[in-house]
């Protein structure tokens, strides 16, 4: 294991986040705060409590998940796509590092960043609404697993993409709709029966539901199913990484 290399890439990627602090931390915090103002205060005051939780507090886990997913994805995909785009990837390719070490470093850094961001948003939310976290350990487990899974997914997209359009395609066309329709802003019990069933095919539902359970002890689907699903997505991404590794890097000609 080339620890020096993993550390070098990890530190480099973290430094990139600090350089672009505005973009990587401030802007998600602002947009989340806006959600609280609009949905929590303005609209939320007219919505009844859901499962005994005020609407403003109800949407917090979903909002954190929303940022966690998109930030993991964009961070990790950009982290590997950019060196490819400007050509600096030559150095990583010529270094004595294995593919797995590169994955650990890039994905680890992206996941770390989005976990930190998730915690910052949690802190921001606590300024707006009274929060309680009934199962902090489960909460952290979901946070870490989700960040890892979607950072891996982002890394795969970054390797696959050969243009900025493709890089933005997946987050835009798939992740944003899935998160908005993933029960961040409502309980799926509130949906008509057909949509309630359809929603169960949306993986984000399981993440949001499980994450919300760790806060308030109430969920749309069983927390064990949520955990199992999260593990499944992680396994799928790991398999995809393994497959990319075995079919060549896709970075070499």
């Amino acid at each position, binding site marked *: 294991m*080339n620890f*020096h*290399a993993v*550390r*070098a*890439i990890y*530190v*480099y990627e973290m*430094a*990139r986040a600090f*350089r672009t602090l505005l973009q990587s931390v401030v802007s998600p915090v602002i947009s989340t705060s806006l959600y609280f103002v609009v949905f929590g205060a303005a609209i939320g005051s007219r919505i009844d409590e859901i499962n005994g939780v005020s609407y403003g507090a109800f949407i917090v886990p979903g909002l954190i998940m929303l940022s966690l997913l998109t930030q993991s994805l964009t961070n990790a995909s950009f982290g590997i796509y950019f060196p490819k785009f*400007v*050509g*600096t990837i*030559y*150095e*990583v*390719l*010529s*270094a*004595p*590092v*294995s593919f797995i070490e590169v994955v650990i470093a890039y994905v680890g850094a992206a996941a770390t960043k989005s976990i930190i961001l998730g915690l910052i948003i949690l802190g921001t939310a606590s300024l707006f609404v009274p929060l309680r976290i009934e199962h902090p350990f489960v909460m952290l487990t979901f946070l870490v697993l989700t960040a890892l899974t979607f950072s891996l997914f982002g890394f795969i997209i970054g390797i696959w993409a050969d243009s900025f359009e493709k890089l933005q395609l997946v987050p835009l066309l798939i992740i944003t709709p899935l998160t908005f329709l993933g029960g961040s802003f409502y309980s799926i019990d509130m949906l008509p029966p057909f949509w309630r069933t359809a929603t169960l095919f949306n993986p984000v539902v399981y993440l949001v539901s499980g994450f919300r359970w760790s806060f308030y002890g109430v969920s749309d689907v069983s927390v064990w199913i949520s955990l199992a699903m999260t593990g499944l997505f992680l396994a799928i991404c790991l398999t995809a990484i393994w497959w990319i590794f075995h079919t*060549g890097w896709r970075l*070499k*000609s």
Partner: protein
Amino acid sequence: MAPILKISGLSKVYDSGFTALKSVDLEIDKGEIFALLGPNGAGKTTLISIICGLVSPSGGTVVADGHDVIRDYRAARAMIGLVPQELTTDSFETVWATVSFSRGLFGKPKNPAHIEKVLKALSLYDKRDSKVMTLSGGMKRRVLIAKALAHEPEILFLDEPTAGVDVELRRDMWNVVRELRDGGVTIILTTHYIEEAEEMADRVGIINKGELMLVEDKAELMRKLGRKQLRLTLHEPLGALPEALADHGLELGKDGTEIVYTYDSQGERTGITTLLSDLSQNGIRFKDLDTSQSTLEEIFVNLVRNQQ
């Protein structure tokens, strides 16, 4: 001496179907400066890229100091440094950070003293806290060299290091290269400045259309293929060469004040003695004479032309 780099039957067919390398065999000795010469598209960058792990070979093997560059890539790559042809740098990093990053990436623990030494040798030390994007092209080239040297490689590849580089940097660079060679580092460079190969290299390889046409000790190459010219400056200009001298294949130059005789310095007979006696028999007197040897450039152009 055992070669530090052994390339055997190396070939590359790109996905496009283009054959960039045709079974190249080459051995590089430890501590030498080897210049790879060839026109654009000859396959120089492809060859270097395969050795450094940027391109997968279609066939053949490369062994660096006993380590196969694919099976034993960790050991092989740890001893290799690469300065790529393109100016590809991290724009937003400082010089110090990007060079330190390279050292870590190649598996070496931090060593600020070494980074400082490298930056000073390349006149980059004053710029260590500058962002790379604020530097000029020549300075960026220095940064790339510093990055390649950050992990103290034993084999250094320089892919057209002086393309588009000013005189000062070129001089600095050759000083660094000589110093590295004195420290036992093996250096392989590609260049299209033939004078550079001539000035710097111990051995020269000529590659064209993916084939390594010739590998030769530089001095040997110049001697073997070198044609020499003898120039005689005449006392009185000649209108035309006398019939009697037709067999020598002379050329009359500079408005008839100079006779140029081209001969093969390797030949059994250079023909100089007979030429001189023929000249005096015809009453041609000269006041000065001078010989010159063909440059690598001329050798190179001839070789490439013959292949076409």
